[in-house]
């Protein structure tokens, strides 16, 4: 349980705490939800990076959420912690995971080559959207860890939607 007394009637543990400031919850959910609502980046790419960043942070509350329809395979899930040596990730997934790996603790180590590798596969708007996604995955882990939000295992249709739930 978080050391904050969250709202009892909230739809998720994350919303129970962020909902203590309702306007901020609504706007944060709209920002994060825009990633998923507008299909800016392929959902499997987002889901792989989200879970990878959660693993780097050791954030069980983020890892406990699973995006059911993202298209991530069981083999990929099993190999995610050692993705560089695994053969089940596509070139664009590998480029995205390379950037995701650096986001939590090595963001100064991102190179021109890291971004160029993404631009081989993605348009500039998609590169921007993916970069925003990685920062939000990182931020979500930090929020959950700092606020000590308990894991809630959920298989969800979508991790967030502007007019839905922020899991």
């Amino acid at each position, binding site marked *: 349980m978080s050391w904050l007394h969250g709202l009892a009637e909230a739809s998720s543990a994350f919303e129970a705490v962020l909902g203590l400031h309702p306007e901020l919850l609504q706007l944060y959910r709209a920002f994060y939800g*825009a990633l998923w609502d507008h299909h800016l980046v392929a959902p499997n790419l987002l889901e792989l990076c989200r879970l990878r960043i959660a693993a780097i942070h050791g954030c069980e509350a983020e890892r406990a959420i699973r995006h059911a329809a993202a298209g991530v395979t069981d083999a990929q899930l099993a190999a995610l912690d050692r993705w560089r040596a695994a053969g089940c990730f596509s070139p664009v997934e590998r480029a995205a995971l390379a950037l995701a790996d650096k986001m939590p603790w090595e963001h100064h180590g991102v190179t*021109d080559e890291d971004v160029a590798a993404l*631009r081989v596969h993605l348009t500039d708007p998609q590169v921007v959207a993916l970069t925003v996604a990685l920062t939000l995955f990182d931020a979500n882990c930090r929020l959950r860890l700092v606020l000590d939000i308990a894991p809630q295992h959920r298989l969800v249709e979508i991790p967030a939607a502007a007019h839905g739930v922020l899991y």
Partner: protein
Amino acid sequence: MSSRPRVPPVPAAHTASRLAHVPPLEAAFWKLYGELWSHGALDHRTKEVARIRNARVTNCGL
């Protein structure tokens, strides 16, 4: 650090922010960030001290 932009700016955009590449994200971001600075539960001094301290800790010259 890169010596050149890794993603080019959007021509004729009203800011240099690369978020202009993705209008739905840009709009949602400015609403959130604007709320943070326009209203919110904390006074401006506290938020500004935290912003500057965070920029220094993360070594963000921008």
